[in-house]
């Protein structure tokens, strides 16, 4: 039944795509986020849906779509450079060629699509449509996770949303990070969208979705999620009018929410400060130290999954109560092949200094570009100016949340976040075209001159 519904849904969008091929790009965004081939049970699982939609999205653009307004930008160049470098490390420098090849299988798609997406997002409406489909696709996982958290309280590694799977967005920490990172974009789509103009209904939906998103870190009991919420809370301070009122209300909401949080959650969260006793946290620090030593010896990186080569012993410190006294017990633990648990160390260890530099530049430039747009429209009174200011803020805040969460989760090549980068690139490119248009308009002495060929 689920299969038929999902297949009918996909078929409907494919059919609509014959009139507007851009819809196939949206379809790929959906398929990549939700992975309906995993959600279903029967026929759908045997079709390589992701690849088909990937090809359809490309073919639709290349063969049927107009290219007017498509631009290749510096950041797309950086993505292609990262892609090329990953190909080199995978095929020539990998410590574990087989594992590297299997990770490469999905990473290349993520990077190619992120570089391609901005080419297709050449109008304002397309930009908004892509943002909307990203929000709604993520919502299908977030809503389910949110409701289940309310009903069952969830649990670390036990909350199952749509699919019993530990890859992509279905992995707890990744889902927490993405759920919080998408909140600003959700609010933007509801408040400034032109596709769903039923403003009140949209805001109610957005409020419910934001609530569900905030519940995801509770349900999955991931500490990263809590840190992401805190980061977003601080970032939002930048754009609220009455900061003290906001801070007060946020504090109040926290106090009210505390009694409703499951005990297992508050217990787990309290371990954030006790990282020395926690094996998971201790290994992270040890893996990060190992990674730094590793790239010093292998500055070009060790290809995907190079962490498999690590092995180290470390001591955990726990206090044991014996009657009235407390005794500190040190225990030696040996670990092998521990994952990076941080996107920064993941990219550094896998792609070396070159890949890491490209990756950092890609993210740094994104934050800067959004800041440029924010600055330009900060005092704008026009509806459009306010809309762009809000979008730049939303994309920047979401990006910052991701960069904070990425410190604790290995999401260096997460397709969803690369799509967000794609949105940023398209947005900045669109704005630059508009600014160039404004400049032309602001030169009255050139008004007689035909502006043929100028970007529309």
């Amino acid at each position, binding site marked *: 039944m689920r299969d038929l519904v999902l297949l009918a*849904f996909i078929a409907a*969008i494919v059919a609509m795509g014959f009139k*507007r091929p851009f819809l196939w790009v*949206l379809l790929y965004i959906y398929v990549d986020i939700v992975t309906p081939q995993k959600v279903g049970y029967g026929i759908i699982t045997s079709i390589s849906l992701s690849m088909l939609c990937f090809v359809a999205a490309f073919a639709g653009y290349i063969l049927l779509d107009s290219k007017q307004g498509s631009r290749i930008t510096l950041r797309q160049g950086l993505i292609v450079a990262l892609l090329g470098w990953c190909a080199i490390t995978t095929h020539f420098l990998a410590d574990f060629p087989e594992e590297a090849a299997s990770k490469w299988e999905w990473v290349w798609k993520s990077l190619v699509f992120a570089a391609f997406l901005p080419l297709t997002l050449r*109008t304002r409406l397309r930009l908004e449509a892509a943002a909307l489909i990203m929000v709604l696709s993520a919502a299908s996982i977030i809503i*389910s996770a949110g*409701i289940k958290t309310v009903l069952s309280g969830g649990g670390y590694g036990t909350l199952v*949303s*749509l699919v019993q799977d530990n890859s992509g967005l279905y992995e707890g920490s990744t889902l927490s990070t993405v759920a919080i990172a998408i909140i600003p974009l959700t609010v933007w789509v509801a408040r400034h969208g032109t596709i*769903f103009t039923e403003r009140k209904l949209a805001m109610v939906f957005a409020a419910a979705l934001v609530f569900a998103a905030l519940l995801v870190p509770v349900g999955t009991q991931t500490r990263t999620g809590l840190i992401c919420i805190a980061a977003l809370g601080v970032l939002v301070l930048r754009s609220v009018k009455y900061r003290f009122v906001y801070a007060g209300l946020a504090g109040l909401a926290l106090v009210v929410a505390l009694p409703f949080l499951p005990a297992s959650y508050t217990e787990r969260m309290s371990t954030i400060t006790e990282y020395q006793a926690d094996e998971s946290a201790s290994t992270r620090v040890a893996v990060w130290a190992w990674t730094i030593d590793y790239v010093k010896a292998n500055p070009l990186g060790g290809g995907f999954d190079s962490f498999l080569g690590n092995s180290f012993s470390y001591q955990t410190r726990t206090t044991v109560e014996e009657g009235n006294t407390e005794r500190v017990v040190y225990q030696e633990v040996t670990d092998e092949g521990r994952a990076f648990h941080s996107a920064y160390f993941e990219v550094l260890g896998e792609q070396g200094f070159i890949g890491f530099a490209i990756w950092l530049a890609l993210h740094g430039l994104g934050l800067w570009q959004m800041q440029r747009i924010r600055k330009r429209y900060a005092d704008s009174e026009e509806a459009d100016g306010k809309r762009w200011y809000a979008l730049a803020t939303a994309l920047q805040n979401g990006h910052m949340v991701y960069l904070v969460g990425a410190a604790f989760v290995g999401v260096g090549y997460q397709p969803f976040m690369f799509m967000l980068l794609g949105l940023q690139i398209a947005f900045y490119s669109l704005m630059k075209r508009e600014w160039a248009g404004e400049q032309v308009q602001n030169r009255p002495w050139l008004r007689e001159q035909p502006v043929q060929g100028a970007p529309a």
Partner: protein
Amino acid sequence: MIDYFSIALTHGLILLACWRLLMRDDLDVEGAQNRPDPRPWLQQQAQQEQQEHGPDA
């Protein structure tokens, strides 16, 4: 049950969004006015609409 609700709600909204995008010319061309497809059998209706709302409607 929860999964079905979540799938139905979000997929329904995605379909509705795509349907609305299908009708909008500014999806493909920046600033394009939405013009309904030429439907000769509805010519009279179109003329009437034009008279009521003016040529830009």
